[in-house]
């Protein structure tokens, strides 16, 4: 499960969903794997305004990943500065910046393969196996 997914996940228990402490879910005993994927600059740019940046930073910290910039990148940060300023016109082939590469690596290539996701509100643990998180609840929590 890619880390980007955590940006759209909370606890499946109804009473938790409206509690701020249920977001983001906290990875525990996580085994990470890098699954390489093609960097898609427009996709990254479009997803940028949807990111809960502070929460992503805190998840990355909990997983012991290299620190992310404290302030959320803006679209311009994703483009590498052109080597030759005269090539900026046209702009057909825009190169991703290091920021874009780092973001791609963290959000789309870093995957939780095994472990748990824990709700900060009720403490319920959701298992992640073979890269798939399971949110089915036991009967008494439905």
């Amino acid at each position: 499960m890619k880390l980007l997914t955590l940006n759209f996940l909370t606890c499946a228990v109804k009473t938790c969903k409206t509690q701020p402490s249920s977001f983001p879910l906290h990875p525990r005993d996580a085994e990470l794997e890098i699954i390489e994927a093609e960097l898609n600059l427009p996709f990254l740019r479009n997803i940028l305004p949807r990111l809960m940046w502070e929460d992503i930073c805190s998840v990355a910290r909990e997983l012991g990943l290299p620190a992310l910039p404290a302030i959320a990148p803006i679209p311009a940060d994703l483009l590498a500065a052109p080597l030759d300023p005269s090539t900026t016109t046209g702009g057909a082939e825009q190169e991703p910046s290091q920021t874009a590469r780092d973001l791609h690596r963290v959000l789309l290539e870093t995957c939780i393969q095994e472990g748990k996701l824990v709700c900060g509100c009720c403490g319920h643990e959701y298992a992640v196996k073979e890269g798939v998180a399971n949110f089915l609840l036991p009967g008494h929590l439905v």
Partner: protein
Amino acid sequence: MSDSNTQGADYEAQHVHSVYEEIASHFSSTRYKPWPIVERFLKEQPDGAVGADVGCGNGKYLAVNKKVFIVGSDRSTNLIKIAKQHAPHSTLVADNLSLPHPPGTFDFAISIAVIHHLSTPARRIEAVKAVFDILRRPSSSGSKDGGKALIYVWALEQKDSRRGWDEGHKQDVMVPWVLKQKKEKKPRKKQGGVSSDVEAGEDEESKGDKTFLRYYHLYKKGELEQDIQEAGGVVSESGYEKDNWWAIASPCNI
């Protein structure tokens, strides 16, 4: 949970969930062609939109548009194992009545051939509501639309299909799925009068095959729109396509 709700959940566990778990791989091999209206809906989403595919099955709709990000979920672990191959999207196992998403998250959602598997009227309305709950709310000023959902359900009115159901028939039915046993090749006999488009595995049983029965509620004309309204949604477009009723709807601005 109320008694009827618990009964509904138990019933679906036996007559829907466990069946899909058993037939997952065979079922998936017959589900690869996207339905045109679903394809159109997914392709018209703006680049970078974030969506949910609630009840994504084998994930066939995750392959349609790679410029959006879709979180697909399904009750069946075995179907999700098949669905997880679709980059850049994400898949997880979840119940459609207990979705693990913050309210108001998604720009769009699809629920294709899912809600007809819930066994009581209240649970079907709750399932529609669960889809609306995860969609972006419209702004109170009305300047920004709410997220949009496309919902598909099987129709009662399908007298030209090989099942032949129609208006006035029973709406709650058990539909067989035949898991074929591997058998030695026999010369294929042409059978007169049998339609050639019988989907592999769905009906006829021969020796050694195993038949599973899945529960369906067949929707009659207008019923989907009514469920949507009761769930707090507004229909913007709806219709009938190939034995199914469909509707595009948004959560109400309340």
